[in-house]
């Protein structure tokens, strides 16, 4: 009996710990959802469930601000960054993962170095470049500048995946007289589907969440992406605290991400570990 009791206490303790972890990770988001549904004075109370939930915060967000436009901006920027990064990275990953040539190791080290250095380090140079290209306050300027953090990461992870594909595939293709281009597009790309989906998703999340460049390289409300819009939300008058709408906006941009994460959690974890733990 004592041993059984001890084991039972042990597993109760374990599940208690698990419960604490879950509440800790999920509660802030839960509180944001609850707050976003409270209108008027109810927002300043602390009920765990809104007594009469209403959507006025959500309505105000789209009525008083170009928040719909901000969402479209974010979708466009993140989508285009993913497309460009994957296109450039797939070819590079073939070269770095499958072919031995002089200069390969230094190139990999440079890519790793770029993924390490701080974004603010290129801020003035990037500002100049974007202005010179006429892309200030333009979404394409964000697409271009975001490549600095999505490209090293996608190349690195895809190279890791590419190296693990069996070499017999390539040899068979070559025996049939396929050129390297055909080998990549017909043999490797179909096999890379899951890897491309994972890295694409991670790059999408990184671009969707980016703040510093978006804050610095855009000027008008219509060109803002979602994170900047959320950081700069104001009430309809100087006396109104805008917390209700901030929470509503937070919920709107986070729900799709959470759904993506829940659907692809296994892939995300494997992509993250390929990118980080294994190096």
């Amino acid at each position, binding site marked *: 009996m004592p041993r059984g009791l001890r084991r039972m206490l042990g597993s109760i303790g374990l599940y208690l710990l698990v419960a604490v972890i879950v509440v800790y990770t999920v509660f802030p988001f839960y509180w944001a959802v609850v707050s976003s549904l409270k209108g008027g004075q109810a927002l300043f109370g602390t009920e765990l469930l809104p007594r009469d939930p209403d959507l006025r915060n959500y309505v105000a967000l789209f009525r008083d601000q170009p928040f719909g436009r901000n969402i479209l901006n974010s979708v466009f920027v993140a989508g285009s960054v993913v497309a460009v990064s994957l296109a450039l990275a797939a070819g590079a990953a073939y070269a770095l993962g499958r072919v031995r040539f002089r200069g390969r190791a230094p190139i990999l080290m440079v890519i790793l170095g770029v993924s390490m250095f701080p974004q603010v*380090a290129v801020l003035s140079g990037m*500002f100049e470049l974007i202005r010179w290209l006429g892309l200030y306050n333009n979404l394409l300027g964000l697409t271009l500048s975001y490549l600095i953090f999505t490209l090293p990461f996608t190349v690195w992870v895809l190279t890791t995946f590419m190296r693990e594909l069996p070499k017999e595939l390539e040899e068979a293709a070559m025996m049939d007289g396929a050129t390297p281009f055909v080998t990549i597009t017909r043999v490797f790309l179909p096999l890379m589907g899951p890897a491309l989906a994972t890295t694409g998703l991670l790059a999408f999340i990184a671009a969707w969440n980016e703040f510093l460049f978006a804050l610095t390289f855009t000027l008008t409300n219509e060109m803002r992406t979602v994170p900047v819009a959320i950081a700069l939300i104001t009430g309809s008058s100087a006396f109104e605290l805008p917390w209700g709408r901030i929470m509503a906006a937070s919920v709107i941009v986070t729900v799709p991400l959470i759904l993506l994460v829940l659907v692809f959690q296994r892939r995300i974890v494997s992509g993250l570990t390929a990118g980080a733990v294994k190096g």
Partner: protein
Amino acid sequence: MSVAGQAAGRTAIAPAAATARRGGLSGMEIRRQRAAWLFLAPMLVVLALVAGWPLLRTVYYAFTDATLFDLDYHGFVGLLNFRFLATDPDWWRAVWNTLLFTIVSLALETALGLIIALTLDARLRGRGPLRAAMLIPWAIPTVVSAQMWGWMLHDQYGVINAVLLSLGIIATPWAWVADPSLALWSVVAVDVWKTTPFMALLILAALQLVPGAVYEAAKIDGLGPVGTFFRITLPLIRPGLMVAVLFRALDALRVFDLMYVLTGNSPSTASMSVYARQQLVDFQDVGMGSAAATFLVLIVAACAALIITAGRVRFDSAGS
């Protein structure tokens, strides 16, 4: 696999290629290498354009008195910007804030991450949903988590003050974000919330590579749970852990969003990135902003070198 080995393999299946050998490489191999450079070129060009060139320009501007109003019209001022930087207490405050933030949050995240990973590594039901729950803070944009916590930590209406007051832990509401002595710790708390689960998942991945037989052997040898952790588990997951620590440290050193959204440009929490951007955009002083950014790069490089040598980090996956 060596070049020679690859060429040999190629020769075995395609004898025709052997006749085209030049200097130990088959014609096929030479074609592959040419193709490799062709496929690499677009990526390298883009990387040079968006990373190399802006970085060089930033370092260049650090030695000028350029302003954002007119970047073209500027003079060369030598080390003047760096001399200003060295005498600006706000800059040293920013350096100190950043280092303190990095060390404290990294220590907390590693410790809590280890605890959570070990909990999840225990055989328990519902691990899948649990892992999904842990990805939520990671997926939430930093700006959003800063706002969510800003609201929870609000001095008048925040839920955290309400709970602490009702439990009698504090007597009057605390100004978590506005009080200069508390603000940096609030920022650390938000970062720990956002990043610990991510650390836990990386550590968990390393833990699951440890073969079960090792633990059984430890048990037979009479090693207790604490001994097993420090003598078996920790040394085995150390390589994975060190890479995670390295990437987190580099991430923490460039922190910007959290401070900017929670406390604006307030010097009590400003990080080096916040300081550099303030000089560059708000004060339009491209020279000073670039000097601060250049200094930050040097600090980041020094920290990376320190962690890589001290932690004996190896990038064995794609690197070798």
